[in-house]
């Protein structure tokens, strides 16, 4: 990617330093892992790392791709600004959902005491989506009214 950009001598030095820092970091990380965890645990870490890469590259990316294709198809019928607003709202809601779903699950595992995971996160997540829909609807309506007035 960086092929067509010339590299100045200073930049080359900075680069070398960064590579040095990088290698030291990787070695330290490996050292801490190997000295503090037993082989089975290290295998566990490796499996999680691999799982994260696979989850990202093989599952999430194609899903995102599919969704954006759908959105773009809809884009022919709907105002682009409205589409961008709705897309943004869905993404924000999805991120919050991703963070809260494991929390809902964790709460089913009997937390250590009443001050751990004190809320009803499922209901709150539902209310969040409701609020998001209302706010997004209002923003879109506002935009469309303004656009209509301008036109």
């Amino acid at each position, binding site marked *: 990617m960086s092929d067509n950009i010339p590299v100045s001598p200073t930049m080359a030095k900075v680069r070398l330093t960064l590579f040095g820092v990088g290698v030291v970091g990787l070695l330290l990380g490996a050292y801490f892992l190997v000295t503090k965890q037993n082989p089975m645990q290290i295998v566990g870490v490796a499996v999680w790392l691999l799982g994260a890469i696979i989850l990202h590259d093989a599952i999430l990316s194609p899903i995102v791709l599919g969704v954006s294709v759908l959105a773009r198809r809809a884009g022919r019928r709907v105002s682009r*600004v409205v589409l961008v607003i709705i897309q943004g709202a869905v993404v924000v809601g999805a991120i919050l959902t991703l963070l809260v779903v494991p929390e809902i699950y964790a709460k089913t595992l009997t937390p250590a005491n009443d001050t751990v995971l004190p809320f009803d996160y499922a209901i709150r997540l539902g209310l969040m989506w409701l609020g998001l829909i209302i706010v997004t609807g209002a923003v879109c309506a506002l935009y469309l009214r303004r656009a209509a007035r301008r036109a």
Partner: protein
Amino acid sequence: MQTQPVRRLLLNLQKSVAAPTRNPRLAVVLGRFLATAFLICFATGLYSHFLQDPLPWMHFPTSPANLYQITQGIHITAGIACFPLIFGKLYTVFPNLFQTPLITGFKGLLERASIALFVGASLVEIVIGLLNTYQFYPWPFGFRETHFALSFVIIGSLAIHIGVKLPIISKYWKKIDGYGPGIRQSAEERELVDAPLIDAVPPGIQRAPGVKQAAGLTGMLFRWIDDTPSVDEMPADKRETKVPHHSSLSRRGFLATIGAGVGAVVLLTAGQSFAFLKPFNVFAPREKGIGPQAVPINRTAAAAQVTETAMDASWVLTVKNGSIAQTFSRAQLLALPQTTVDLPISCVEGWSQMATWTGVRLQSLVKAVGGGSGAALTLTSLEKEGGYRVTQMGSEYVSDPTTLVALTLNGETLDIDHGYPARMIAPGRPGVLQTKWLSSLEVS
């Protein structure tokens, strides 16, 4: 205009991958935020680590008293903010995934490997960090050790990644030369630079730094799609002529979305760490002001198996310095001069709670057994087991006048879940080191 369905689908596919949000400048903008958040997490994480496992020469500030409350609150909050940032970042570089051949030469292999490591380690790091705050540990390895080791892997692979991309990063650092100042481009061409990374790139724009025509299979695929008569051959009224408008719209929309995502996750969770955000605490795993005596807890007396020993009428606190030892019953401690301080309980999990404590200055107990001002202590709890049953306290905390053997909390007798009959409370330390159910203090 008639387009074959398959081609139309592919055209859509290509257009969506070549969305204007994915371009070097945007990757740099997001990368800067992400790198900043990572470095903040790394620094605050290291601080938390060394507070718990200090190197022999280390001393820590005891003021401001809420220093750890702030650093660890920032750690968790910046950590949660990493989620939208990393998703956005991965999205901006996402077309690179569809590039074939995947690996070009040794340099390419190193580049790919460092990125794979970086992505994998970052995702695992933030996910286990988040789940840890839910006290949910579905992994077969030690959290602290792995979270610690991976933080070095992340910073290391991040440094390598930045090194590899340095030319591009410096080129796109400032907005003004965000589009390759060496190349004369019309405004429209510049806007196009925003768009394609793997698209069939117009020749003039291919010279822009960091813009690369996709090679191999993907490139062929996209070139084939591009043969499809598209916008230009549509009737004029249906033509998408306003490329600049569109690309900048979706770029702004994208940045606004990531910004809103960061804003939402922070606003709706940071109330567990920062009191002024408490009204917005919707999703945090903790809430300020709940629990016995309005202070949340992690380990209950039952979990620590101290319900009997802590209530035993013959309980005494033993204070030792070499061969000198003194014991204090709770009544004797209460008879000593009492000090009241406001100090937070600040958990490693990021939540915290300010509270008012009354008890005996630790300093005076240490003096009673002849300990000097440089004395450090070994604290032992009644707990039957656990990693924090026996802990060390550095001399900076022992000599601090606000460090107390606390007997009351918020004006009431210490609740058993808060460490009755007596607990330690010191400024600037993580909650795990604020030993509850004290049994003995020994000058070390």
